[in-house]
């Protein structure tokens, strides 16, 4: 699927009440009238606070490549849930589904992100699992 697919979902009307949690109010940033769904190739994983961003290149039907930024969780939360800098390498193809920024820029919230085989990008648990992060000694 090498094209941007505009997803017309009947669920849009339900989305206005999406909880605004995390470091900012999502309703202020992403537009429920601008659904996105496409495949892209990772160019960079930006491990930055307060939220990480996945940079991808998306090739349209006309062969034109556009760059997008997809918001991810807080880096610290990703670390605690088992992510490392090697979890999403440059060149990896991913499928992204979500909503575009209200100002029309090529940024999205990435509500659902999977690898091309359908497996979730974010798998892991912080409960009882310190992940790959170096630990401190507990007294």
């Amino acid at each position, binding site marked *: 699927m090498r094209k941007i697919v505009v997803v017309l979902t009947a669920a849009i009307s339900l989305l206005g009440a999406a909880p605004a949690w*995390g470091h900012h109010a*999502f309703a*202020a940033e992403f537009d429920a009238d601008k659904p996105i769904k496409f495949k892209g190739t990772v160019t960079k994983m930006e491990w930055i606070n307060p939220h990480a961003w996945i940079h991808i290149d998306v090739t349209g039907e006309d062969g034109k490549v556009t760059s997008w930024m997809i918001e991810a969780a807080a880096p610290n939360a990703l670390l605690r849930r088992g992510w490392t800098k090697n979890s999403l390498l440059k060149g990896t193809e991913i499928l992204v589904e979500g909503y575009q920024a209200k100002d029309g820029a090529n940024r999205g919230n990435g509500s659902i992100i999977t690898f091309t085989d359908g497996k979730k990008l974010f798998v892991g648990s912080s409960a009882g699992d310190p992940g790959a992060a170096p630990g401190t000694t507990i007294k």
Partner: protein
Amino acid sequence: MRHVVVICGFLVAGAALGQTAAGQAKASSAAKGWTQPKTPWGDPDLQGTWTSDDCIGTPLNRPANLGDRLYYTEQELAQRQANLERQQQNDLVETVAPDARVSTGPPGHWGERARRPCKQTSLVIDPPNGRTPDLLPEAKLRPVPEGAGNGNPKADSWEDFSYYIRCISRGVPGSIFPVIYGNGQQIVQGKGFVTIMQEMVHEARVIPLDGRPHAGPNIRSYMGDPRGHWEGNTLVVETTNFLGNRTGIVGNGGGTPTSDAMKLTERFTRTGPNEMRYEITIDDPKTYASTFKVGFPLTQEPGYQNFEYACHEGNYAMFDSLSGARAQEKKAAAKAAGTK
């Protein structure tokens, strides 16, 4: 902004037991066979990195149908434990659920998780109904910032956003009350001082223990002016000299902003090698009709540590939200003009 994450089914079936003195004692008594360690200079040693993760999702205000009951029953706790285990299993499922819904909000994987069920039905532990007292009329006039619970995502300026969203501060309560992630509290002690370093927004509270008076009334800050002392093995911290109308007492500093008259009294009591009881009394005569108390456990967890939180570094959301609001205004203006 009330960052409430529903992590378990909220169970009230069979919830006839009231809050008991035994339950209170259970929450605050020291672990058997454990003795409070001391620093080389003789103070109780609270050092380590603590987290309030286990009460992620516990509401600040108790649902009215639970009345005066602060603690879940053993049966309810067992059910909540089962729910946590189910959530942990779901976190490890490798494929997206067929009924997963796309939304403008953040995905579920963003949140960190409790490791064990919170025993409390609310974070507010006093008054007995577990609810914050009424706001005074003057407090109701204070605007609640964008992103702090005002429900109006259309800011005119960066100054309309909460101090948390602006990466400035979450205030004292908002920096320790459990939220969806980043709940780390690293305590470091030196002779005559305790420092608490908080992961999210990177506050460092330096607390003198030498009995010095508070700063003068003209010296004010987001995190106030703390003074500490020991009552037995409990660290008591009294904080005054706040800037008013900055942050509220909901998680991340959300809700109605508190005033410059606020006085906070916190109590840190280590109850075991990896457990601590935290309680805070909030006295703000310009905001709330009476004082109230919030409390919850802090724990140390294997491998848990504070990470960097250079919040301004990539706070793209600020730009995005403002440019989004302007784009919406243009769209509305064009529609009104009939040009679409």
